[in-house]
């Protein structure tokens, strides 16, 4: 599989390798020592406990698209410092450090590709880049991806993992919530299908905008998903949080998700849904033909006269 090697490359420097040569790794889920190759073959999940390891945006997209069909868009969009923001560090310095650490330009990767032969637009946040936070660039790339899906009649898939706002961009970060939601609304109005995939962790402004707006919302198992972070909630209400609070399964139980799907099954799930909805995407000529009403096979056409109501 082509994504195999890329995953290996993408992860260097991001996840601590505790074992020599990176051959073995301690699972964050069960604490077992697992063979790196086996994890990779398992779509970066633990073969012992099913723990989902954090992966890069590129690896995620590569995992979903058909081999060699992905074409990145808007790769040249980069962040500036509109507020001249400075805390203990200047924002441009934080950006530089993030770029150096991750070899990414920003916290999101977008582009076109095919998923099970279905023309799609994909976007994936990369948590390693300043916590996948909502920079102007992130909002702009999501908006453009949505517009592209709309104009080219493609399915839209966004994979989220984010700590929320990019505070260093202040109010402009907040406005990306409105911008992305507005384009998704426009896309939806035109009949576009958008599937949102939530991975660990997805919180704040990303959850409160595009991540929760999928026609279908799927989460990976055990992902932390919420508006406010658990620590903020604990401090506000001064109360311990219930077990499993804000995890995928908790959200599913509370009606906030369509399904929880483990990573190895996600592509199959997407393709199934796309196949289902592709009926209306058949060529225009075909679509114009009047539908032929077929009697479902399980219904007897010859009505049982005895069961008809008596004639008046």
């Amino acid at each position, binding site marked *: 599989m082509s994504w195999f090697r890329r995953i290996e490359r993408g992860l260097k420097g991001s996840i601590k390798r505790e074992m020599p040569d990176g051959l073995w790794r301690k699972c964050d889920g069960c604490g077992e020592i697992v063979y790196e190759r086996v994890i990779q073959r398992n779509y970066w999940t633990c073969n012992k406990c099913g723990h989902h390891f954090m992966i890069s945006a590129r690896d995620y997209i590569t995992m979903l698209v058909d081999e060699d069909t992905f074409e990145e868009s808007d790769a040249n969009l980069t962040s500036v410092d509109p507020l001249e923001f*400075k805390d203990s560090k200047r924002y441009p310095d934080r950006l530089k450090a993030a770029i150096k650490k991750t070899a990414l330009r920003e916290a999101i990767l977008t582009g076109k590709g095919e998923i099970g032969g279905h023309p799609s637009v994909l976007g994936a946040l990369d948590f390693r880049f300043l916590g996948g936070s909502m920079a102007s660039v992130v909002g*702009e790339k999501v908006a453009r991806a949505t517009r592209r899906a709309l104009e080219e009649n493609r399915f839209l898939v966004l994979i989220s993992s984010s700590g929320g706002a990019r505070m260093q961009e202040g109010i402009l970060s907040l406005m990306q919530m409105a911008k992305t939601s507005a384009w998704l609304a426009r896309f939806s109005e035109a009949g576009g299908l958008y599937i949102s995939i939530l991975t660990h962790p997805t919180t704040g402004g990303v959850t409160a905008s595009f991540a929760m707006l999928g026609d279908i919302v799927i989460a990976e198992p055990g992902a932390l998903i919420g508006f406010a972070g658990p620590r903020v909630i604990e401090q506000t209400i001064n109360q311990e949080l219930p077990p499993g609070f804000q995890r995928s399964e908790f959200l599913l139980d509370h009606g906030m998700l369509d399904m929880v799907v483990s990573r190895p099954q996600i592509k199959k799930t997407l393709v199934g849904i796309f196949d289902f909805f592709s009926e209306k995407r058949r060529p225009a000529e075909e679509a114009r033909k009047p539908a032929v009403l077929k009697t479902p096979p399980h219904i007897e056409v010859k009505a049982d006269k005895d069961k008809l109501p008596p004639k008046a």
Partner: protein
Amino acid sequence: MESWLDFEKPLLELEKKIKDLKALADAGHPDILHEVEKLERFAEKKRRETYEKLTRWERVQLARHPLRPYTNDYIKMIASWFCELHGDRLFAEDKAIVGGLATIGDYRVVVIGQQKGRDTKENLARNFGMPHPEGYRKALRLFRLAAKFDKPVVTLVDTPGAFPGIGAEERGQAEAIARNLFEMARLPVPILVIVIGEGGSGGALGIGVGDVVLMMEYAIYSVISPEGCAAILWGDRSKAQQAAEALKLTAPDLLQLGVIDGIVPEPTGGAHRDPKTAAENLKRSIIENLGHLTRTPIETLLERRLEKYSRMGVYKE
């Protein structure tokens, strides 16, 4: 005096002194009128000095001033008729958001706004103006009502933020806000948004997407509270002052960043010093903007609304 801010106190003392002297003059000491006039000129100068160079942190304090007019106060002052509507029809009535039918000037509108409490008891009922998902879903219900009957929507934003709690998360705080952003972006009636006090992050934006977005002069609007930002980036909540400066959250800041369309002037010293004048300014601004908005075809408004939000953000390509 405990409701007053530190930088307000010297001015208030001065004003009290003038009032006392005036009373004395009226009581048969016209010779001190000259003194009163001199003091009044001095007070005016002092006021100008104070409010011309307010720091961002001082503006944050004004936006949160305990005596500042809230949504219900403005509705009372600007609407000739108001009928409050309650409940989201799904789970509960959230008193942190009020909404209803209102007549403002010649316009019949649906008005929605966050509502803070004036005292402890009211704050408990209104959750300090921090809505739960039910509040956002009530707002959504009223947006749809407005659309059905072709009435413009006016929202008044004044919240520290959406409430971070167990129930709020269980019932989908994030989804409720996201849904409103999505629906407001395409709502087929004009939407006018005015931040009247505190525009606290996603909780503010949840009723804050519109064709025209205004801020009252001393309102603030921010992605995170200065305290929250200070805690995360400085590791110290007491650095809120620096965070407020860095966040650029005042009305003039947002106008410059292209996030808002205009500023509604407040009386010297802020809306709480003269609520009537503040309300008159707000009303004038609402009527003027509704005039433009209701004369524009809705297709044009929707196209412009999308363009407006498409332009938000700064980046390099």
